[in-house]
């Protein structure tokens, strides 16, 4: 699903329950990461949930390639939003993305709060850092 599609789905969510349902559906659509890829190195530690992230640059196309997974439905759904935001972008394009602003617009900003500790904030920060090295 493209980020635009996600945006349309979530934008006018009538309730938290509805948002969560959509988020969890997004998570379900994200393919599971093969177990061998769930390495310690790929792991982003959250307090309550675990997230794995692999980030790569397609050297020829200069496109970002991100795959990831989480052991919880909601975080996996949130992760899929982040992946949709960045996947296929060039490093320069990615630098322009403000994930915080997008989460704000989606009404999900509290999931990026440092106190939440779900790993999503760490994911976003990791991507931004990695991207700025490639850009």
């Amino acid at each position, binding site marked *: 699903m493209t980020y635009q599609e996600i945006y349309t789905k979530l934008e006018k969510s009538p309730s*938290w329950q509805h948002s969560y*349902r959509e988020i969890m559906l997004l998570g379900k659509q994200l393919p599971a990461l093969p177990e061998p890829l769930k390495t310690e190195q790929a792991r982003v530690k959250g307090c309550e949930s675990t997230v794995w992230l692999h980030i790569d640059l397609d050297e020829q196309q200069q496109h970002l390639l991100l795959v990831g997974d989480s052991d919880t439905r909601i975080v996996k759904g949130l992760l899929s939003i982040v992946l949709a935001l960045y996947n296929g972008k060039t490093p320069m394009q990615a630098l322009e993305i403000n994930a915080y602003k997008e989460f704000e617009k989606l009404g999900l900003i509290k999931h990026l709060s440092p106190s939440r500790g779900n790993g999503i904030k760490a994911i976003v920060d990791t991507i931004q850092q990695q991207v700025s090295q490639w850009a």
Partner: protein
Amino acid sequence: MSDITQLRKDFPTLKQTIEGHPLVYLDSGATSQKPQAVIDAVNLFYTKNNANVHRGLHTLSEVATTQYEKVREKLARFLDVNAMECVWTSGATHSINLVAAGLTSQLSTGDVILITALEHHANIVPWQQLAARTGAKLEIISVDEHGVINSDLALAEIQKSKPKVFACSHASNTLGNIQDVQAFVAKAKELGAITLVDGAQAFLHLRPNLRQLDCDFYVLSAHKALGPTGLGVLYGKYELLNALPVYQTGGEMIDTVSFTKTTFRQAPAKFEPGTPNISAVLGFGAALDYLNAINFDALHQYEQGLYQYLIQRLQSIDGIKVYGDLKNNIGTASFTYKNEHHYDLAMLLNSYGVAVRSGHHCTQPLMQTLNLNGTIRVSLAFYNNRCDVDAFISALTNSIELIEG
């Protein structure tokens, strides 16, 4: 009983909505809510009587000191011990660390420190560190597959390991299990152990009589018992307490200081080195007054009834598994739903205004034993009622539907 249902009104925090739903606070094991009387006592101190304690001759300081020391006496009566045996600390964690640090010179290689498999990290790591410092061995009383300690096996374990130090929670923060600490302590002391009971969870629900319990040390945190944050208690039998070496040093705990020689005061003063958390002590005094005004038997019955209702409703949901000792419990239920992650359930519950705790609850070794990565924990207090339980159950069934739908 009708009285008890009225107590809820004394807790202003409970009168709010979260995400558009009335707050259902089921996280009292993390910290209790505070009755207005406690909030008022803190407020009064800062608006009227604020002054440092001890040593000040002026009226404000004298009033503050008198009130501060009166709360110590009040606490001592509550616990049925002497005021001199009650040290103010910054929390249960601080209290355990103080004892564990103080026992360093009393242990040597091969001595056994015995704890249980369901302890909170605060009652594990300080002992682990003590063991590492002294060469002592940390040994563990195990739990069964529900997370319950079998008393007979525990007594046998105490007998076998002949611990120098025995530390055990009065009630588990994760599962709510009440341990048979009176028997454990008696056995351990018979074998010459120094005993510490972690009452962080139990204090509010069980109101222990420490003279009867007869443990050497007992610790608790005010914030879990209607009191303010940043305050704990270390009770210690006077001789053992006073025999511990000084822990932190500073202004209030000295007798005389010179650059060549410093002498210290006796317990409890010797363990209270800096400006104490005066406002919290006064607030905790109000909490003790509040508790003293409630008939404990009725309260206990009410809590137990509510807990049984919670368990019954929980167990009626297919796929829910409740851990712990459901007979002997302070009112805390830890559960899982199928293979669902506690994180998802907790987030969804919160969207209905239901505040529960999820995760390992600072008891990672217990989680490893139970082969879980976490649970949802519902912890009740007397200010909860059946409406809370009903709202929780309905939020839970809705959440499950959301997840599975």
